[in-house]
């Protein structure tokens, strides 16, 4: 169980997050929604200690993550950033890097086997020796996802992982995320701008407005009023062929 309580963060004297609290269970994928500047990415980076919150706590199974060393925190939480830096590193080596929080002096057979297993699961096995800078956008995001998975996290943080992808790759990556979160029974927190993608793949939603939690819960929290309050535009959520879709005026 992931429990975030009273989390606050400021950039200098400018407060960005105010008293953010929510909880998330293993196997759930929560979409973090809100306008630009609402504090979505800041929230994600506070959770994995890229930024240090001013106040509040983040606990995983009762253990306060903010009191752990960086290495210990990296064994609990993994992160896929907004933009991946494609280097000459091969896909396999990139995924193997996810074992860094566990590595002593050298790589073990177990590390290699785990990487191979995740590569197979993410469909990247045929590309494992290809340099990252020769991958398509979708393949690159899958490689980053695979690297995050071999960290064997309890919480997977994703910051707009589909923002630079075409619709087909967006759906492929989101479907993969949903499957992995469910199969591996880990909690997933994803910052996402596309409401329809979020409605289709996320089980829970955290709506942020001006750094505060506006609403948190299942799909029922995404109402026309909530959309107006969070995004400032009129919209509504309809059900079409059993699938929730958001329409905007």
């Amino acid at each position, binding site marked *: 169980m992931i429990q975030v309580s009273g989390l606050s963060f400021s950039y200098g004297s400018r407060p960005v997050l105010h008293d953010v609290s929510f909880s998330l269970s293993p196997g759930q994928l929560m979409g973090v929604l809100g306008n630009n500047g609402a504090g979505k990415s800041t929230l994600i980076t506070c959770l994995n200690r890229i930024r240090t919150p001013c106040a509040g706590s983040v606990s995983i199974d009762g253990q306060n993550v903010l009191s752990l060393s960086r290495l210990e925190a990296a064994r609990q939480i993994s*992160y896929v*950033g907004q933009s991946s830096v494609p280097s000459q590193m*091969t896909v396999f080596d990139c995924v193997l890097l996810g074992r860094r929080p566990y590595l002593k002096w050298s790589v073990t057979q*177990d590390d*290699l086997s785990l990487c*191979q297993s995740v590569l197979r699961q993410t469909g990247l096995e045929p590309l*494992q020796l290809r340099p990252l800078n020769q991958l398509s956008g979708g393949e690159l995001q899958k490689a980053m996802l695979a690297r995050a998975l071999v960290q064997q996290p309890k919480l997977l943080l994703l910051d707009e992982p589909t923002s630079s992808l075409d619709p087909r790759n967006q759906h492929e990556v989101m479907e993969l995320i949903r499957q992995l979160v469910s199969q591996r029974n880990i909690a997933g927190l994803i910052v996402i701008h596309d409401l329809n993608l979020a409605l289709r793949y996320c089980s829970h939603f955290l709506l942020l407005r001006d750094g505060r939690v506006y609403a948190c819960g299942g799909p029922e929290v995404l109402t026309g009023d909530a959309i107006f309050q969070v995004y400032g535009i009129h919209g509504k959520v309809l059900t079409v062929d059993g699938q929730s879709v958001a329409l905007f005026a």
Partner: protein
Amino acid sequence: MTKPAVCAEYRNYIRKKWLALLALAVFLLVSCVLSACAGSSGLSPREILLALFGLGGDTSRTIVWNVRIPRIATGAAVGAALALAGCVMQNVLRNPLASASTLGVSQGASFGAAVAIVYLGGGVSLAGSSAGSITVTNPYLVTLCAFLGGIATTAIILLLSRMAGASPSTLILAGVAISSLFTGATTLIQYFCDDVTVSTIVYWTFGSLGRTNGREIALIALLCAAAFLYFFANRWNYNALEGGASTATSLGVSVPVLVLVSLSVCALIASVSVAFVGCINFIGLLAPHIARRAVGSDHRFLLPAAPLVGACLMLWADMVSRTIAAPTVLPIGALTSFLGAPLFLYLIVKRRAAP
């Protein structure tokens, strides 16, 4: 969960990296032997080999053990140190143009060493000796002052790299400015010196592998070995940094500490090299790029490969400097600049052309 066997393809890939490293090590060995044979004394390879094992005539033994071996050891150690520093600087500053010479660290160290030699009694100029050579009488003082000069430059670079919007080009331009500052300061020192001291400083800044003694070579080699161990222990951290600071932090790397300590160690080994052999430009820039071509950007292999390439480059540059206009020995610093400047321009053009 059943553990699948790791495919032979990846194992072959890793084996090829090890073979590439082995090839580089063999090439370095060959370069050492060729360097021992190269020179104006006209010794045959047989005489060189005999002298290496303590056999043959006194002259050949003296030339091999007192002139050539120290020169080879200095070249290999300095080349390795500069390449190692360049390799790590390029990673932690995420700038392929970074090296001790392009960022002004060498020039800062050079200024520090000049201050120690001229004002603090760290060196004595030997007037009347060939080419106005200089002997470093207090290597520790010279090294300390060179390090202070190098670390001051590193601090400025570090501050600039932290500033919002400091692009790779900004850092290089800052390096040009810092180099100019320290070159100007060294010129001022020369202006107030007597003729002999000026000539010795000028000769010293040309760069030479032929003026180090065993104690100095041991100091460079030991520091280089210690730095390598520190860098190699952090090889996974450098790989993590390839993906950006946020990714590295999320993988458990304490990025500010890593950057600070790494750059300080780079400044130390680059400064010590400069203190004893003068400014050797571009080896630190060239060697990591050549090593990347050979073994890729994985620091498990790149960190051992870069110093091997750096050592080879230095030995070949030294061989050319000793033989191209024999018996005159050309300044190796000028030669490495001739070698490195075109590559530097190529990298700038390549970066401009990149999408």
